[in-house]
């Protein structure tokens, strides 16, 4: 049952990415390119996604457990560390460079052509080495 609902959630996510045009790298780069022909579509996508998600967080606050059992995620951590900033900056640079982030990268694999596979495999490679870099960043943080 958990797998079925995960599949449904993934299906909604994948169709949303597809329908919204977020698998089109030109749309993403068009949004980031404020000095070119600026394309505001991404703001509509993000805004649209916030609505059901914000409602879901309100419903979550009134429930003790998820519908399928188990536990809800812990409250959002408030700590702003440099891993958050450094990681997000690296991610943003790659996002701008190719116009793809992890969700759309997977959603476009079936029809986008070889370039999407090249990006996807490189991304998996990055994810494989990331824990080692992450530990190094932890180590070099001065003791407080």
């Amino acid at each position, binding site marked *: 049952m958990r*797998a079925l609902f995960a599949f449904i959630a993934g299906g909604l996510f994948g169709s949303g990415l597809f329908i919204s045009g977020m698998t089109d790298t030109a749309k993403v780069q068009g949004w980031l390119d404020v000095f070119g022909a600026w394309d505001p579509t991404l703001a509509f996508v993000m805004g649209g996604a916030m*609505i059901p998600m914000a409602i*879901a967080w309100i419903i979550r606050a009134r429930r003790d457990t998820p519908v399928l059992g188990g536990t809800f995620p812990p409250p959002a951590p408030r700590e702003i560390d440099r891993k958050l900033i*450094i990681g997000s900056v690296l991610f943003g640079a790659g996002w701008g460079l190719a116009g793809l982030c992890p969700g759309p990268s997977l*959603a476009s694999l079936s029809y986008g052509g070889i370039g999407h596979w090249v990006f996807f495999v490189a*991304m998996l490679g990055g994810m494989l080495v990331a824990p080692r870099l992450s530990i190094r960043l932890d180590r070099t943080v001065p003791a407080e």
Partner: protein
Amino acid sequence: MVMDWVWGLVGGLLIGLGGAVYLLANGRIMGASGIIGGLVDGTGRRDAVERVAFLAGVFLLPVLLYPLYTSIDTHITGNWGVLIAAGLLVGIGTRIANGCTSGHGVCGMSRLAPRGFIATVAYILAGGLGVVLFRHVLGVI
């Protein structure tokens, strides 16, 4: 152009609905980089079935929707060097930051998580600077 915005909004609502189902039914945060990354580095082995099911949905629904469209161009660059560099940056960056556009952006900001807002500002600024640098200054993309 306006129709692009409408489809953007409709698609966005579906994305948010997916996140709502994953949170309320499965009790999980819908973050694409975390779901994929946990399988890659082994930290998500315990709930691997759930992760694979989610990712199968992300992969398969566009396969079903694709025939409804006459032409789709993803405008991806043909430069493999750029694609490999970008893929590595996205893979490393999202795992170090523990989230991407879906986790920090959609799920984080909608619950007013400070980390969600900070991450989103950081990756949008870096992405914007990246596009300016690589497109307008260096002419690589």
